[in-house]
C-alpha cells in the first residue's frame, strides 16, 4: 500500500493538505488533554504506573513459567491452546480451525496482532470472508487501508469520507455524514453479521497465568457480540500479554483507558474463562519475534506495552505525520521501537521519525523508556548499515570533516561565508536538513576565531 516510501516521504504526502494536518494534530491533542484530566483525578497515579511497570518486569523475567502455567490452567478450563512461532503459523492455525468446521465467514474484533500477522489477507486468499466489527476497523477495512492508530483506527478520516464509504458499501444516502446516523447504520449491518457468523476472532488485552482466563476490553461490545453468538471463539494473543494474577488486572484496567482516551474504564471488560457448553474456545499464543526482542536488553521493555496509544496522541511527529506514515501495523513511537525488531532494514527509518522530546515516555502507563529506545535503535541501525542512504552518506562526510582539524576549519569558514552571502544556497528544498528544520543564523566567526581574538582581552 505504501510501496517503498519511508516515513519522511509518506509524511510529506500527508502534509500536502495543511488543514487536515492541523485538524489531525488538534484532534489527537484533544485526546491527550482528556488523558491528563482523567489521570489528574487519581491521587497515586505515579505509584500505579510504577507498580504496573514492576509487574511487567516480573512478567518478562518469568515469562516461560507464566506461559506454561497459563497453558495448564486454560486447558483445564476446557480451552484449546495453540502455539505459533510466527505470523504464518498463526494464520495457518486460524485457517485450519475454520476449515475443520467448514466455516467460510468469520467476524473479528479489534486485534493489532492480526494486523501484524496480515491475517485478513491470508484468510481472504483462502476463500474466507472476514468482517472487522469494531466501527473504526470496519471503516478502514471498507477503505482498504490499515488502521492509522491502535485505539482509534480511522482517526485520519473525515466524517464526509466515511459517509462516502457507507454510501458506496452500505447504501446510505449520498452526502449524509452524521456520526449518529452512520454509527446506527453500522450497528444494523453488523448485527446481522454477528447473528450469522459461526466463528469469531478476538484479540486479548490481558491473560492471567494464575487462572487461565483472558480479558478483552471494548467500548462497542463487538467482541462480546461476536464471541457469545459463535460456535467457535478464537482469541489471538502475543506471548507478552500474560500477567501473573487476577488481582493485577486492577492495576492495568485502571491505567489502560485513562491513558488511552481519558475514560475511567472501557464499557466492557470481559473475562473469558471457559467455553460455552458445547462450543469451542481456542487461544493462539504468538511469538512472532517477541522472544528475540526479549533477548535485546535495550529493547525488551517495549514488550511491556499494553496498547493504549497514549504515546501516539502525545507525539508531535505522529500528530503531524499521520499513522500511515509509519508503514507498520502499530504506528507512532511504540510502533517505531517494535517494528525494527521484526525487520531492521524495512523499518530502519522509523526510529528517526522522532524529535526525542520524551513526551511518549512521560505518558506511558507502564513506563517504557520509549524515547531512549528510539535513540538506541538509531545507533544499532547505523552500525548494522541499515541507515537510509542519504543519512549514511552525509554522516560519513561529517565524520570525515570532524575527524580532521584542517578540514573542519576550512569547511566551517566556507559554510559561514556561503550562508551569509547566499543563504538561498542552503535554505532550499534540495537540502533535506532544511526541509525538516530551520537553518540557524550564522555567526560571523567560529568560536575558535572569536577565542583567538578575545582570549587576551
Amino acid at each position, binding site marked *: 500500500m505504501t510501496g517503498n516510501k519511508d516515513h519522511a516521504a509518506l509524511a510529506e504526502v500527508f502534509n500536502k493538505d495543511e488543514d487536515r494536518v492541523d485538524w489531525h494534530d488538534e484532534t489527537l491533542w484533544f485526546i491527550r488533554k482528556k488523558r491528563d484530566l482523567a489521570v489528574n483525578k487519581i491521587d497515586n497515579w505515579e505509584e500505579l504506573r510504577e507498580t504496573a511497570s514492576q509487574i511487567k*518486569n516480573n512478567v518478562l523475567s518469568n515469562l516461560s513459567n507464566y*506461559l506454561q502455567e497459563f497453558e495448564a490452567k486454560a486447558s483445564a478450563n476446557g480451552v484449546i491452546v495453540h502455539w505459533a512461532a510466527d505470523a504464518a503459523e498463526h494464520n495457518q492455525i486460524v485457517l485450519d480451525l475454520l476449515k475443520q468446521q467448514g466455516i467460510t465467514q468469520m467476524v473479528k474484533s479489534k486485534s493489532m496482532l492480526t494486523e501484524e500477522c496480515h491475517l485478513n489477507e491470508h484468510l481472504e486468499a483462502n476463500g474466507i470472508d472476514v468482517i472487522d466489527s469494531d466501527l473504526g476497523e470496519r471503516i478502514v477495512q471498507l477503505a482498504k487501508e490499515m488502521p492509522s492508530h491502535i485505539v482509534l483506527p480511522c482517526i485520519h478520516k473525515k466524517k464526509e469520507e466515511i459517509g462516502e464509504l457507507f454510501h458506496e458499501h452500505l447504501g446510505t444516502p449520498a452526502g449524509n455524514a452524521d456520526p449518529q446516523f452512520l*454509527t446506527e447504520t453500522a450497528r444494523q449491518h453488523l448485527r446481522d453479521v454477528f447473528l450469522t457468523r459461526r466463528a469469531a476472532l478476538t484479540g486479548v488485552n490481558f491473560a492471567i497465568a494464575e487462572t487461565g482466563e483472558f480479558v478483552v476490553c471494548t467500548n462497542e461490545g463487538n467482541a462480546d457480540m461476536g464471541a457469545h453468538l459463535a460456535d467457535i471463539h478464537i482469541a489471538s494473543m502475543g506471548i507478552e500479554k500474560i500477567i501473573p494474577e487476577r488481582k493485577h488486572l486492577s492495576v492495568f484496567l485502571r491505567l489502560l483507558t485513562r491513558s488511552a482516551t481519558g475514560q475511567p474504564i472501557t*464499557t466492557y*471488560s470481559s473475562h473469558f474463562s471457559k467455553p460455552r457448553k458445547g462450543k469451542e474456545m481456542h487461544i493462539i499464543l504468538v511469538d512472532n519475534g517477541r522472544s528475540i526482542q526479549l533477548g535485546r536488553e535495550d529493547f525488551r521493555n517495549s514488550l511491556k506495552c499494553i496498547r493504549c496509544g497514549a504515546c501516539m496522541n502525545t507525539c508531535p511527529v505522529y500528530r503531524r505525520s499521520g499513522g500511515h506514515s509509519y508503514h507498520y501495523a502499530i504506528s507512532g513511537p511504540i510502533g517505531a521501537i517494535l517494528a525494527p525488531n521484526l525487520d531492521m532494514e524495512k523499518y530502519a527509518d522509523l526510529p528517526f521519525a522522532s524529535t526525542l522530546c520524551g513526551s511518549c515516555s512521560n505518558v506511558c502507563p507502564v513506563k517504557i523508556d520509549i524515547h531512549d529506545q528510539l535513540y538506541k535503535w538509531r545507533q544499532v541501525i547505523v552500525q548494522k548499515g541499515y541507515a537510509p542512504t542519504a543519512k549514511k552518506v552525509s554522516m560519513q562526510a561529517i565524520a570525515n570533516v570532524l575527524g580532521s582539524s584542517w578540514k573542519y576549519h576550512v569547511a566551517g569558514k566556507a559554510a559561514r561565508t556561503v550562508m551569509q552571502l547566499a543563504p538561498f544556497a542552503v535554505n532550499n528544498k534540495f537540502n533535506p536538513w532544511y526541509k525538516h528544520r530551520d537553518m540557524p543564523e550564522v555567526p560571523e566567526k567560529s568560536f575558535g576565531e572569536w577565542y583567538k581574538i578575545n582570549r587576551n582581552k
Partner: protein
Amino acid sequence: MSSRDKILAAVSQNQPVYSPVPDISFLQGDNDNTVAKFVDILTTIGGKVILAETIADVRFLLLEELKNHSRKVTTVPLLGDIMEMVNKSLHDPHTMENIDYAVIEADLAVAENGAVWVTEDKLFTRVLPFICQHLAVIVKADNVVPTMHEAYQKIGDSTYGFGTFIAGPSKTADIEQSLVLGAHGARSLTVFLLS
C-alpha cells in the same frame, strides 16, 4: 521440536534475571462517599442510576418503564411476574436477538469508574447484556466498592466461565471523535441501587 517447545526455549534463554512481583496491597481506594461517586461517574459516562429501597420498589418503577418496550426479559425471580423469565442457559442465544429490555443482577459495583460486575451464573446466557437494546442492572448499594483494587479483592478466587465489568451503555467515538451511544451493545444502561 514443536513451536511450543521452540518458543518456550527461546523465552527461557532470553528472559532477564528474575525480578520479583511487587506487593500491590498498598493500593487502596477511599471509602468515603462511594455511592455518591458511583452515581456521579456512571451518570457522566451516559448511564442512569435510580436509588430504590427494595426489589419491590424496582418492580414498581419498572411497571411504568416497561410499557414502552416490546420483548422484556429478566433473570431476577422477583420480577418474573412482570417480565419473561430466563433462568437457565438458552441452547441458542440467537433467539435473544429481539430482546428490547433486560433486567439482570450484579454482585458488585465500582465507584471510580461506574462499572458493575456480572458473572455467567447470574446471566445464564452470556450474550444477554450485550444483545438487548436496553439494559438494567440491580445491585446493592452496600456492594459499591471504591476502586478496582477492592473489586478484585471481592471477586477473589471465585470461579466463573465468563464475567464482565459493564460501565455505561455501549458507545463509540470512531467517527471524528463524536461520541455516539449504542454501538453494538445496549443503547442505554440503568442501574438500580438497592439501599
